């Protein structure tokens, strides 16, 4: 199978508290998986475990690198993990302040990863920054402005540009549209969809907004109390929910 990520029986506990329990799934290349569930259901724990931000208690996470080698993420060194996390992976935070350097200009934010990889040509860094600004629909005149002067939606788009400049293959998103007003959300989703499809990215997106997954995700994982209660194609799960919690979740969405 063409899996970029295979997760087997992943378990993480906080003392007696269960973070996420016995979770298994595969992520194919170019696929978008949505993880939905209420607050405290373990979706963010799952995401942090996958991205190596939390230590896993049990289970395995296999990642296929650019050279087609399967790497066991629970066993790789810190050096390798940090290298992967600034080249092959991207992590889009809910709050752009967590993912951006607020006192560094937009251009500096976008090109930080390239400089970390050893690029030392100012003019070429700058033209790459300009290119990415226009890709995420931020006016190129704003390249030297600090993100503090940006609106919430612009900050989120800047965070995406900063993450995608190294052309990562696996993107983790933690509520990327949270805290934005609906029209900005729609614009951002539109942009995300364009980029994800255009670059054939594999994405795991955690959200409690069913509208977001309806638009972006190919498949859904529904979580409750640290366990997966239902999986399936997005439309299938949303249109014909089997588990009672999923039914509740779907019926809770306001209809217009």
């Amino acid at each position, binding site marked *: 199978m063409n899996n970029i990520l295979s997760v087997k029986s992943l378990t993480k506990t906080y003392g007696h508290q269960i973070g996420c329990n016995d979770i298994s799934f595969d992520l194919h290349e170019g696929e978008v998986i949505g993880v939905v569930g209420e607050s405290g259901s373990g979706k963010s724990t799952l995401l942090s475990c996958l991205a190596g931000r939390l230590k896993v208690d049990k289970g395995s996470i296999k990642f296929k690198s650019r050279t087609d080698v399967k790497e066991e993420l629970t066993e790789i060194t810190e*050096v390798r993990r940090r290298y992967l996390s600034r080249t092959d992976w991207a992590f889009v935070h809910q709050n752009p302040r967590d993912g951006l350097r607020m006192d560094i200009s937009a251009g*500096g934010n976008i*090109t930080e990863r390239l*400089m970390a990889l050893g690029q030392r040509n100012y003019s070429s860094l700058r033209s790459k920054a300009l290119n990415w600004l226009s890709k995420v629909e931020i006016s190129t005149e704003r390249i030297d402005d600090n993100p503090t002067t940006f609106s919430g939606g612009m900050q989120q788009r800047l965070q995406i540009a900063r993450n995608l400049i190294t052309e990562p293959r696996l993107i983790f998103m933690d509520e990327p549209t949270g805290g934005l007003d609906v029209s900005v959300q729609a614009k951002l989703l539109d942009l995300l969809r364009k980029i994800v499809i255009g670059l054939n990215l594999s994405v795991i997106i955690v959200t409690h907004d069913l509208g977001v997954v309806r638009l972006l995700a190919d498949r859904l994982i529904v979580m409750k109390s640290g366990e997966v209660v239902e999986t399936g194609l997005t439309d299938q799960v949303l249109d014909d929910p089997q588990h009672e919690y999923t039914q509740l979740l779907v019926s809770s969405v306001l209809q217009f």
Partner: protein
Amino acid sequence: MLKSQKNKYTKEDPLEHDEYNFAYLDEQTKRMIRRAILKAIAIPGYQVPFSSREMPMPYGWGTGGVQVTASCLCPTDTLKVIDQGADDTTNAVSIRKFFEKTANINTTDDTNSASIIQTRHRIPEEPLKEGQILIYQVPIPEPLRFLEPRETETRIMHALEEYGLMHVKLYEDITKHGHISTAYAYPIKVEERYVMDPSPIPKFDNPKMHNNEALQLFGAGREQRIYAIPPYTKVISLDFEDYPFEPMKAEAICSICGSNSSYLDEIIVNDKGDKNYICSDTNYCEKRK
């Protein structure tokens, strides 16, 4: 004062300096600091933690440098102390007096005849030679501090050689000012491994650190760190391919000695704002007069 001189006061009154252990610090402390220094020399540019002592002077006056000097001093040493290049400023005078009193050693203003030079913010103009030790006073040893406030994180960054952030700072400089405007404490890479803060010396002095014949030691008292550049070590100032590192000095000559190659201080001479430039290295200037 060109030739070395004994401190007459302590000479005539041995009791006065017998109240202190040689060079103020007790022997165990000096051993501890020497171990840190040896480790620092073994890993050029790496910041070695040490248990810094209270010194009889405030932080920011060179407590780190003083502890390193105290641990390096032998009774036969000749000490020179400079502050911004000058031998006669408050900081330099106080520290020189401190060691005259507590170690009863010879002191000098002459760069060439000093075996140990403690400095604040300058490297002497006269080239240093083998056997000499240059000891810097360091306020903030961590070059990444203002970019990444977490010490836990900066340590990992050093360990894993993640120095991209340092170039983000230089990028910002060029973006805001059209050139790398960092004029002092300009970040360097030592022996192609550790990125290091050279202490707040002007970037004019950076090239002197490269392949220097003398041993260079750095002491940060408040931050409790010691680091070192051994003799003949490769030291490179960070830059961009299209914005290379450039040492910088005032476009003028010294109004006392006429030197056009030394680092100059700007002196405002009257209320109209007229300026004069003089060498910041007073000993160098004196010798040329």
